[in-house]
C-alpha cells in the first residue's frame, strides 16, 4: 500500500498523529525547554500510567462498554502490592498478586455486565466505590511507603537509555495491538461493539468475551499501579482519583468511538501522548493548573466534535 492510500484508509489516525505533531511543533517554538531529551523522557514517564490504563479502556470501549472503576482498582491493587512487598514477598510474587486483584475486580465487572445484565456504567460505578472502600479498609486510610531498590528499579531503571516504565508501556501497547488485530478475541471485541446481536448470532461467545474484556481492563489498571507505586515509592489508598476520566479521554481523543466497534490501540497511545504533551507544555509555559483543566476539557470536546462532524459529512 502506498503512503497516500494508507493515509486515506487511516484518516482518523493520521489526523490524531498530525494534531500531536503540530502540538509538539507549537510547543517547541513557544518554549525552548520542550524539545529536550530530558523533557521528552519526562513526558513519556508521565504519560505511562494513563497510557497503560487507557489500553484497557480502549478494549472496554471498543466492545461498547465503559469502565469507571479503573482508578479505584488501581488504588486497591496498589495497596495490595505494597502490603505484600512489606510483608517480605518476593517482587514477582507481589506483582502477581497485584495483577490478580486487578483482574478479579475486572472479572466482577464483567460478570455483572454479561450475566447480571447491568449497564456497564452502573456495574463499574458500583465497583468504583467498593474498590476504593476496600483500599481504604486494608490500609486504614494510610499510605504504605518505602520499598526495596530492586522493586523501585521498575521506575528508576533505564535500559538502552530509555526508562523502564516506557519500555513497559511499549510492551503493553505492542501486545494489545497484536491481540486486537491478530487473535479471535480481538476480532470478537470489535464485533461485539459493532453489533452485539449479529455477533451472538454468528456464534461469538459474547458473555465470555465481556468477562475477559473487563478482566483485562482491571488487570491493566493493576499493572499501572505497579509502575505508579514504584515511582512514588508509596501506595496510596486515595491514588488514581479520576484516572478513569483521563483514560477515557485518551481513548476518545485517539479516535475510538464511544459507541463501540471502531478504534485502535495505536490511536489511544497518541491520545495519551497528546494529553501528556499538553499538560507538560502548559506547565512549561507557566499556565495555572486551573486553566489546564479548562484547556484539556476543551480538547476532549473538540476531538469528539470533529469526529461527529467528519462522520456527518460522509452520510
Amino acid at each position, binding site marked *: 500500500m502506498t503512503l497516500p492510500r494508507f493515509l486515506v484508509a487511516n484518516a482518523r489516525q493520521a489526523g490524531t498523529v498530525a494534531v500531536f505533531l503540530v502540538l509538539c511543533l507549537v510547543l517547541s517554538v513557544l518554549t525552548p525547554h520542550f524539545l529536550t531529551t530530558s523533557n521528552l523522557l519526562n513526558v513519556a514517564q508521565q504519560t505511562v500510567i494513563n497510557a497503560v490504563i487507557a489500553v484497557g479502556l480502549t478494549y472496554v470501549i471498543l466492545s461498547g462498554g465503559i469502565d469507571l472503576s479503573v482508578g479505584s482498582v488501581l488504588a486497591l491493587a496498589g495497596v495490595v502490592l505494597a502490603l505484600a512487598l512489606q510483608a517480605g514477598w518476593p517482587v514477582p510474587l507481589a506483582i502477581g498478586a497485584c495483577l490478580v486483584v486487578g483482574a478479579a475486580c475486572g472479572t466482577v465487572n464483567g460478570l455483572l455486565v454479561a450475566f447480571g445484565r447491568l449497564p456497564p456504567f452502573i456495574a463499574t460505578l458500583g465497583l468504583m466505590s467498593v474498590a476504593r472502600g476496600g483500599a481504604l479498609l486494608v490500609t486504614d486510610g494510610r499510605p504504605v511507603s518505602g520499598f526495596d531498590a530492586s522493586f523501585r528499579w521498575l521506575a528508576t531503571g533505564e535500559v538502552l537509555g530509555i526508562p523502564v516504565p516506557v519500555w513497559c508501556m511499549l510492551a503493553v501497547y505492542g501486545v494489545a495491538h497484536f491481540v486486537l488485530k491478530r487473535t479471535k478475541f480481538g476480532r470478537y471485541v470489535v464485533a461485539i461493539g459493532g*453489533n452485539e446481536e449479529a455477533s451472538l448470532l454468528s456464534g*461469538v461467545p459474547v458473555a465470555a468475551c465481556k468477562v475477559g474484556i473487563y478482566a483485562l481492563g482491571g488487570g491493566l489498571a493493576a499493572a499501572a499501579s505497579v509502575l505508579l507505586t514504584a515511582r512514588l515509592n508509596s501506595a496510596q489508598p486515595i491514588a488514581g482519583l479520576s484516572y478513569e476520566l483521563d483514560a477515557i479521554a485518551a481513548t476518545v481523543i485517539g479516535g475510538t468511538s464511544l459507541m463501540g466497534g471502531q478504534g485502535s490501540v495505536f490511536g489511544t497511545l497518541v491520545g495519551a501522548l497528546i494529553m501528556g504533551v499538553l499538560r507538560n507544555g502548559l506547565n512549561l509555559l507557566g499556565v495555572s493548573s486551573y486553566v489546564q483543566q479548562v484547556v484539556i476539557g476543551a480538547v476532549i470536546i473538540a476531538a469528539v466534535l470533529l469526529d461527529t462532524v467528519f462522520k456527518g459529512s460522509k452520510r
Partner: protein
Amino acid sequence: MRGIAKRYPGVVALDGVDLEVRRGEVHVLLGENGAGKSTLMKVLAGAVRRDAGEVRIDGEAVALGDPRAAQRAGVSIIYQEFNLVPHLSVADNLYLGREPRGAWPGLIDQKTMVRDASRQLAALGVSIDPQARVADLGVAEQQMVEVAKALSIDARILVMDEPTSALTEQEIERLFTVIRSLRARGVAVIYISHRMEELFQIGDRVTVMRDGRHVGTRVLADCTMDELVRLMVGRALTEQFPARTARQGEEALRVEGLCRRGVLHDISFSLRRGEVVGLAGLMGSGRTELARAIFGADPIDAGRIWLRGRAVTIRSPRQAIREGLGFLTEDRKRQGLVLCRDIEENTSLAHLDRFTRAGVLSPRRAAETAGRLTTELRVKTPGLGQRVVNLSGGNQQKVVLAKWLCREADVLIFDEPTRGIDVGAKAEIYQLIQRLAGEGRAILMISSELPEILGLSDRILVMHRGHLAGEFRGGEVTPEQLLHCALGSPPAP
C-alpha cells in the same frame, strides 16, 4: 392520494398508487407483506416523504412534509407498536406535546388536562381512569388510549395498522363498536389487517395492493374472500427461477414437538439433504421465532432436534454453528452484519477458527477466503477493506451469505433472503440457493414472497399463529391455497 411513488435504493416501494377514502367510511387496505401498505400510510402520516404524486384532503392539496404537518391536516395514525410513554398517566399521554398551559409558562394545567382526557375517553364509551399509568393498563385499554389520542387532535382521517393483533374477541368487539361510532361521526378510517373474517365485519370498501401497486378497489359487501385472495396473489410467476436439479439424500434436520410458550406450538418437521423447504406464513405467524429457536437464539420449552440423525441439544448460536447450522437473519443490518467493520471481518466472523493457528489469526488467509467468496457471489465493492455500511442492500446480503458459505454448514436457514434487494441480486440469490441444495445442503427458506416460495421449494410448510398449519409439495399447490392456509381460513369448496 394519487400516483404516490416512493423508491428506495434498489427497490420501488410504491409505484404510482391511488387511494380514495370517503368520509364516514371504513376503508380496508389489504395486501401481502411488503405490498407497500405501510409505506403508503407512512406517506400519509408524513413519516416518509413521497417522490411523486399528490395527496388531497377534503379537496385541498396537502404537502405532508413531516408528521406535525400531517397532524395539522387531520391525519392520525395508530401504529402496530403503540407510541405511548408507559410511565406517564393516560392524560399525560393524550396531551403529550400539547399540554394545556398552567398559571406560568412551563407549568401544566393538570385539572383541565384530566377533565379533557376523561371527556375524550367518555366520548369513546370506555371507562379508563385518566390518571392511571399507561403501563398498568391492558393492551386493549392502551389501544383505546391511542384511539382517544388520535381523536383528541381532531383527526378526520384515522389510520389503524393491525389494531386487533393483540386483542381478545371481546375487546375486538368493543373496538369495532368504537370504530362504527367514529364512522357515524364522519371520520374516515383506514384499516389495515390480515384477518380476513374481520374485514367483512367492519369494512365498507377494500383496496388491494400488490408489489407497490394498486390492483383494485371493491365494495366488501359485493365480493368474496376468494376474490380478494386472488387479487392479493394475482401475478403470474414471471420471475425466473432456476430449475431444480438437487437430488435429495438422507435426513439432515428433524424437529419434533418444538414449543415455546405463547409463540410456537408443537412444531414437527424434517429436512433432507439437497432439499429446499419453503416456510410460508404471515408476519407474526412464528416463522422467524421457529428459526431462532432451532438456532439456539431463543430458549425452547419443549421439543427435540436431530441433526444428521443424532439428537442434539442446542443452547446457543455458537453451539448451533458448531453442529453445522447456519442462519441468515431477516434483518441484515440489525442481526446479520457488523456495519462499521469491513467485508473480510464480517465474512470471517462466524468461523475464525479456520484462520487461526496457535491462537494467531492470519488476516491474509481470512482475506483470501473472503476474496474468493465475494468474487464467487459477485459482490460489487472496491475492496475487501470496504466497510459493509457503504454497500448496497443486495451486496450486503451477499456478504451475509458469504459468512455462512465460509463454513461448511449442512443445514442453512434463510430468513427473507431477498428482502429489500433488487431483481438482479434476487435472481443470483435464487441460483445460489439451488446450487447449495445441489451440493447436498438442506435449506429452510422463510419468505413472505409467495412466488419465491413456490418457485424454489421442493416442499412448503405453512405457519399460522405459531402452529404448522399445512404442508404441501412444491409444484402441486396454488398461491391461493397457500394464502388460505396462512390466513387460517378454509379454502373455498
